C-alpha cells in the first residue's frame, strides 16, 4: 500500500514530463478557439492555407536549429546557410539555366557542405560552435551578397513557382516537403541509434565518449543535417516568393531558437522535442496571424507580440505542472 503511495505521484509526474508539450498544445487550442470565435475570416480556407505555408517554412528553420540544440551547441549560421542555398538554387536556374532537379541538388549540396564545414571546424578545432557558426554566418552571407551584389535572381523555373503556390484546399504543397521532414526527424530522434546518440552527446558528451560513441561523427552529422534542413527552408522560401531574394534567411535566427526553446528544448543540450518545436512554430505563426487579423496598430504590434509570447510560455508551463 505504501508502495503505491510512492509510485503514483511519480508516475503522474513523469508522464507529464514526457508530455511536457501538453501545456503548449492547450495554449494553441485556446488561441485557435479564441481567434475562431472572434474572427470569422480566421478559419477561411485561404487563411488556414497561409498559416500552413508559414508553418511549413518556419518549421524547417526551427528543426535546423533544433538538431544543433540537441547536441548542446548553437548554430547561428542557419539563416546565412539557408539564404545562400536559396540564391544558389535560384541562381542555378536563372543564370546557369539548370533544370529544376539539378538546381535543387545544387542548393541542397550547398546546405550540406556548409553544415559539413561547420561540423568539421567545430569538432577538429574544439572551438565553441557559437564562434564558429558566427564566423561562417558571416562567410555564407558574404558569399551570398558577393555573388548577387544584393540583386535578386528573377528567373525562377515555372514548376518551382507553381509548387510554391499550389494548394489543395487549405493544404499548401509545401507541406509535402516539411511534413515528411518533420516526421522523419521525429522518428530519427526517438527511434534510431543516431538520434539517441545525438541526444547522448548533447546530454553528456563525456559519458557518450566513454560508452564508445563516436562523438566527432555525431557532431559533424548533426551539423550536416542542420545545413540540409536550412537549405530546404531556403529553397522553399524561393518557391514561395518566386524570387531568389538575397535577404532570405536574414531574420531566421530568432524564430529558429524561439520555437525549439518554447517547445521545451534545453539550451544546454540533450533534450529537444519535435512535437514541442512544431507547437512552438504553430504558436508563433498563430500570433503573427492574429496580430494582422486583429488590425493591431502597427506601433503596438511588437509590444503585443512580446506579451503573447510571454503569456504562451507562462501558460504552457503552468499546464505542464512545472
Amino acid at each position, binding site marked *: 500500500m505504501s508502495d503505491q503511495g510512492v509510485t503514483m505521484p511519480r508516475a503522474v509526474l513523469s508522464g507529464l514530463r514526457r508530455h511536457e508539450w501538453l501545456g503548449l498544445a492547450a495554449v494553441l487550442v485556446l488561441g485557435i478557439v479564441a481567434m475562431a470565435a472572434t474572427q470569422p475570416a480566421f478559419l477561411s480556407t485561404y487563411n488556414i492555407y497561409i498559416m500552413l505555408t508559414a508553418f511549413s517554412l518556419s518549421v524547417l528553420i526551427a528543426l535546423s536549429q533544433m538538431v544543433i540544440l540537441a547536441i548542446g551547441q548553437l548554430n547561428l549560421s542557419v539563416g546565412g546557410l539557408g539564404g545562400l542555398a536559396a540564391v544558389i538554387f535560384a541562381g542555378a536556374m536563372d543564370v546557369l539555366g539548370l533544370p529544376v532537379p539539378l538546381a535543387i541538388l545544387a542548393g541542397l549540396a550547398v546546405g550540406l557542405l556548409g553544415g559539413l564545414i561547420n561540423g568539421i571546424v567545430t569538432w577538429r578545432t574544439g572551438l565553441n560552435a557559437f564562434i564558429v557558426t558566427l564566423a561562417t554566418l558571416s562567410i555564407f552571407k558574404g558569399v551570398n551578397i558577393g555573388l548577387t551584389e544584393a540583386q535578386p535572381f528573377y528567373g525562377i523555373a515555372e514548376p518551382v513557382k507553381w509548387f510554391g503556390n499550389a494548394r489543395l484546399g487549405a493544404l499548401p504543397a509545401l507541406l509535402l516537403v516539411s511534413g515528411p521532414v518533420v516526421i522523419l526527424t521525429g522518428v530519427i530522434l526517438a527511434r534510431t541509434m543516431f538520434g539517441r546518440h545525438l541526444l547522448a552527446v548533447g546530454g553528456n558528451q563525456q*559519458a557518450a565518449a566513454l560508452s*564508445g560513441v563516436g562523438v566527432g561523427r555525431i557532431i559533424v552529422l548533426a551539423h550536416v543535417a542542420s545545413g540540409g534542413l536550412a537549405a530546404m527552408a531556403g529553397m522553399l522560401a524561393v518557391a514561395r516568393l518566386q524570387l531568389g531574394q538575397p535577404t532570405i534567411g536574414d531574420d531566421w535566427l530568432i524564430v529558429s531558437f524561439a520555437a525549439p526553446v518554447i517547445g521545451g528544448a534545453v539550451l544546454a543540450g540533450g533534450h529537444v522535442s519535435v512535437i514541442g518545436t512544431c507547437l512552438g512554430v504553430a504558436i508563433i505563426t498563430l500570433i503573427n496571424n492574429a496580430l494582422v487579423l486583429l488590425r493591431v496598430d502597427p506601433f503596438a504590434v511588437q509590444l503585443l507580440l512580446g506579451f503573447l509570447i510571454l503569456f504562451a510560455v507562462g501558460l504552457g508551463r503552468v499546464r505542464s505542472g512545472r
Partner: protein
Amino acid sequence: MTEQSSGREPVLAIDGATKRFPGVLALDHAGIDLHPGSIHALLGENGAGKSTLIKIITGVHGADEGEMRLDGAPAAFQNPRDSIHAGIAAVHQERNLVPRLSVAENILLERMHTRFGLIDYAALNREAARIMATLGLDIDPRRPVRDLSVAQMQLVEIAKGLSVDARVLLLDEPTASITPHETGTLFRLLRDLRDEGVAIMFVSHKLEEVLDLCDTVTVLRDGQNACRSEPMQGLGRAELVQYMIGRKETFVTGRQRKPQGAPLLELNDVSTDLGHHGISFDLRPGETVGLYGLVGAGRTELAHAIVGAARITGGSLRIDGEEERPRDIGHTLRQHRIGYVSEDRKGEGLVLMHSIRTNIAVTIWQRIAGRLGWLTPATEKRAVLPFVEKLEIRAPSVDQPVGLLSGGNQQKVSVAKWLAAEARLLIIDEPTVGVDIQTKAYLHELIHDLVEQGTAVLLISSDMPEMLALADRIVVMHEFTVTGEVPNDGSSGEVSGAIMRCIHAEGEEVA
C-alpha cells in the same frame, strides 16, 4: 614477480606509464599486469594515480611515456571506443551517464537492438533488465537516469560495464556508494566472471573488500609502483597500508559524549511529497544520529526535505522547538545555520569548474568578508588552508579547479567546506565515499571534534563501520519510513544485528 601470480601470460600489461598534468606528475613509470581469471586489486591513497592509470588503458588520456601490451602485442588506444572494441570494459569512478536518457539506453548506448534501423525498445529494455537482474538491481529500465539516486546510478554504471562482453574489466571504486548488500551481489558476479577467465582490475579504499575478493595486488604511491602485481596471499591489512602510505596506520579512538539540552531538530510523523511517511526522530546539540538503510531507502531524500529541497506534506518538523516548513534551500541553510554535505558531489556538492579555494570558502564568505563584501584571495586562502592541510587535499595549489582533482580529493573538498562553516546542524550524506583510509580517520576525528563543540550531526552512511564509529544512535529507514532506532554501544555485531532486524521486520510486514 609476474611469473608468480599466474602461470599464464598477462592479457594486459603496462610498463613505465608516465602521465603529467599541469603541475602534477600523476603517474611516474607505473606498471601492472592483468591475468585472465584473476581479480587484481589496484590500491593507493587519494591522488595516487589509480584512475589515471585506468584512463590511460582505456584511451581517455594519452600516456606521455610507457607502453601497453595486449596479449603480448603492443597496443595503444586513441579513444574509449577503440578500447571497448578491443574487449576492455571500464566502470569509471565518476558518474558518466546521460541524465535524460533511460536506464536501458544508458546501459546499452552503443549496442542498442535495432530492427530495420529502428530501435527495438522492447528488446532493449528486456536486455537491460536482464543485465540489471544479475546485479540484483530492480529498476524500471525506462526510467530516465536523472531520477535515480546516486547509488542506483552507480549500479547502472556497473551494469553498463558488465554489458560489454569484455576480456578485461576495469572497476574504479565500484562499491564506493553502495551498501554491503549490493556489494555482496556484485562480488558473487565478479567471482563468476573470474572463473570464466575474465581479467578484472578492482579499485577500492575498503581494504576488507579487497582482502576478501582479490588475488593479486598492485599499489601505487605518488604515481609510482609501491608494489607490482604481487599475490595477495600472505598480505594483510597492515602490509597493504604500509605499501600505500609508507608508514603505519594511525587510529582515532572514539570518545564518549553526553548530548546537551533540548532537541535542535525534531521530526514527528513527517511525510513528504517524495513519499516519506511516518518519520519521527530527534537530534540534540552535541549528538550524532545515524540514518541507516539500504539503497533507495529514502535517506538522502529525507535530508533534502529537511533543508527544503523537497516539500513536507504532513506531520511536524521543528527546529529549536519551532514549527518549520522549509521551502527555499538557501534560506533554510542560512537562517538556521544548517549544513548539508551532499552525497551527489558532482551535482550539488561541488562546483567543478571553480577552485578548491572557492569551493571551501563559499560557506564562510559572509563571515570572512570585509566591508561592502570586500574579499581577497589571500583572506580566503588563510581561512581555507587549515582544512586543506588537515585533510591532505592533494593539488598543485588551492587555485586548482576541483574538477581536476582525483575523486577522493574532491570528496574531501566537499566535506571540508561544511566543516569550515561552523554550522549548528550538520547533515552529512556519505562523507567518506572514495576517501582513503588515512583521510577517513582524519575526517572522523574532525567530525568528532565538531560534535564535541556542540554541533548536532545527522549522519547518513552506508558504511557500517563508519556508522559504528561515529553515531550515538542509529535510526533505521526502509522504504521511505523509519522502522526503528538502535542505540550504538560500540559492539558491532549486536548493533548491526539489530539494524538488520529492523529492516527485515518491515519487509515481513509488507509482505
